[in-house]
């Protein structure tokens, strides 16, 4: 008793993958993902086309919308680069959200402790501490992963909750601004701790930091021996060890840098946007980063491009909240897109044959 329809769907391996397939699959994934999510928007009694149009206008229809899209793309790029590095080694770091919060906390500590330091000292210091604390938060689950093979997917995810609760503890407790009318916020940063903006918008220097990180990551992965090791380790841990590569050290290092990049995103958010630490500084950048990294097939340049698209999705999400949508709707769209991204992957290396016979060709 075989299901007949299953035998009729059959994937045939492509000999070569045309360039246009590589581009078409992700674009189609987004379009079809939005159509799929549209079914659920209909159940809320709204017309999905109107909703998407409203989102598109909000994100790309005005100078303000566009600049906000860029603003959101900054932390997405940094966290996206971070998780993509770990994914390359088949390390499922889904803790970028928590790593971002810890980085924000580290940067905030320095900004509040030494507000009088000149900007040329304070800002790099905050960047370094953000990187360091995000990195440590990535390193904590990496240690049991490297030495005991403890499942890092679960530990990195659970640490997100811990990091967010820890920051909440600080902003509701010891770090709360005494002049903040009891809001869960720290005191505002001094002038010296604020990232300069580029032109008349909220786009801050973090954009340049993200670009530098992209270039660095690209160069490291493409041109250094260590980058080669990461790529090999990702293909096969066994091969990497046979080749004499230090697999354990590479896990620790990759997770540290991966967390560190998310930590920098936390630094640029508090320093460039909120200009203080507060409850809920991230609308889930660390989770969106996973989708971006996968959609970009872990390519640093593609991550930059995809981050702008998803930055637009976030900004568009804000503009539909005024017409009665939950902030969670954006997550639904993101999840739906990711379904088609992972489902579409098989079409990059295979072509679909209907009604053909299964079995070896």
């Amino acid at each position, binding site marked *: 008793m075989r299901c007949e329809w299953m035998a009729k769907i059959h994937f045939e391996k492509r000999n070569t993958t045309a360039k246009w397939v590589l581009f078409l699959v992700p674009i189609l994934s987004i379009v079809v993902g939005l159509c799929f999510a549209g079914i659920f928007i209909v159940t809320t009694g709204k017309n999905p086309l109107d909703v998407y149009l409203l989102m598109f206008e909000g994100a790309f229809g005005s100078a303000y919308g566009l600049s906000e899209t860029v603003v959101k793309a900054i932390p997405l790029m940094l966290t996206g680069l971070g998780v993509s590095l770990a994914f390359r080694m088949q390390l499922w770091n889904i803790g970028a959200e928590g790593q971002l919060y810890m980085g924000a906390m580290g940067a905030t500590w320095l900004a509040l402790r030494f507000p009088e330091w000149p900007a040329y000292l304070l800002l790099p210091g905050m960047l370094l501490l953000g990187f360091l604390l995000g990195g440590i938060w990535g390193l904590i689950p990496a240690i049991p992963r490297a030495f005991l093979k403890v499942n890092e997917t679960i530990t990195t995810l659970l640490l997100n909750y811990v990091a967010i609760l820890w920051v909440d503890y600080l902003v509701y407790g010891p770090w709360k601004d005494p002049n903040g009318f009891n809001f869960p916020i720290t005191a505002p940063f001094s002038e010296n701790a604020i990232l300069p903006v580029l032109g008349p918008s909220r786009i801050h220097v973090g954009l340049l930091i993200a670009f530098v990180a992209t270039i660095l990551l690209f160069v490291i992965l493409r041109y250094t021996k260590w980058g080669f090791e990461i790529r090999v380790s990702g293909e096969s841990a066994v091969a990497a060890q046979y080749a004499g590569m230090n697999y354990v050290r590479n896990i620790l290092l990759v997770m540290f840098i991966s967390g560190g990049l998310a930590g920098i995103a936390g630094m640029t958010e508090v320093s460039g946007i909120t200009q203080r630490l507060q409850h809920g500084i991230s609308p889930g950048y660390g989770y969106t980063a996973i989708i971006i990294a996968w959609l970009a097939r872990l390519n640093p340049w593609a991550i930059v491009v995809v981050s702008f698209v998803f930055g637009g999705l976030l900004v568009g999400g804000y503009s539909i909240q005024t017409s009665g949508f939950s902030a969670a709707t954006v997550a*639904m769209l993101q999840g739906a897109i990711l379904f088609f991204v992972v489902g579409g992957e098989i079409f990059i290396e295979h072509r679909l044959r209907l009604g053909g016979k299964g079995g070896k060709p």
Partner: protein
Amino acid sequence: MEQSLLVSIIATGVIAGTPILYAAIGEIFAEQAGVINLGVEGMMLVGAVTGFMVTLQTESHWLGAGAALIAGGLMALIHAFLTITLRANQVVSGLALTVFGTGLSGTIGKNLIGIPLPTTFKPVPVAGLSEIPWLGPILFQHDWLVYLGYGLVILCWFVLYKTKTGLKVRAVGENPGAADAAGIHVFAVRYACVVIGGMLAGIGGAYLSLAYAPSWLENMTAGRGWIAVALVIFATWNPSKAFFGSLLFGAVDVMGFHLQTLGITISSFFLKMLPYLITIAVLILVTRETKKRHVATPGALGVSYNREER
């Protein structure tokens, strides 16, 4: 006094552990057949919101639980199609399911926040058994879903380890190529197990919105789906061990509340961290132990099956 406090900690632990238990047993089915589903959190949330909506509409919490079962199964079907038919990466597909489920439940539940339910699952003490000292209040003064959970543990343990069906499931998870050669329909077994997993996760979620804290709140599962995934490793893929694990995690979950009644004041933020931190600690300890005792994880866990590369 001392005794009654211990009893009440364990008794509330049983209740708090029930949603995790359902979800973990579901995940055991999927993983025994070789499919990791990290969408548990998302399936639970969709189960919770669906159960709540249907209970609100029909004024029957049983219909609500049934709807949650179906909703969870449908969610899992997406994961099954992606990972089994399209051979997609199981980790990423599961993550997509969690993100999607979180978003979907938040979207359709937007206007349900703060609405009271007309009917909920209420404790039904079992005549006779509930009078037993210690065991009575711990096990037999709860609602129907808790009792069904006990039955489910026994049933699933029996099915997985004592029946031919269970053997087929485990064969598919261990070595799908060999199972296929032996005439087992690998795809059908995997589809069935993943969907059963989603159904149970759906009920686990509905337990939160219909019994544990009857209400709907965005993200009300608060990581319980992930704790359930960790619990599966803790239980070494065995439903009966999952029961004791869920009790442990349930007790940790309610620990904060009991500490406060004892007059021990710790910041509530730290108390809320406890379940996550203890889950991580337990996961590390258990992984070390399982390696020492060579407890085998399902051999083909996380690997797609491609008939043509058999």
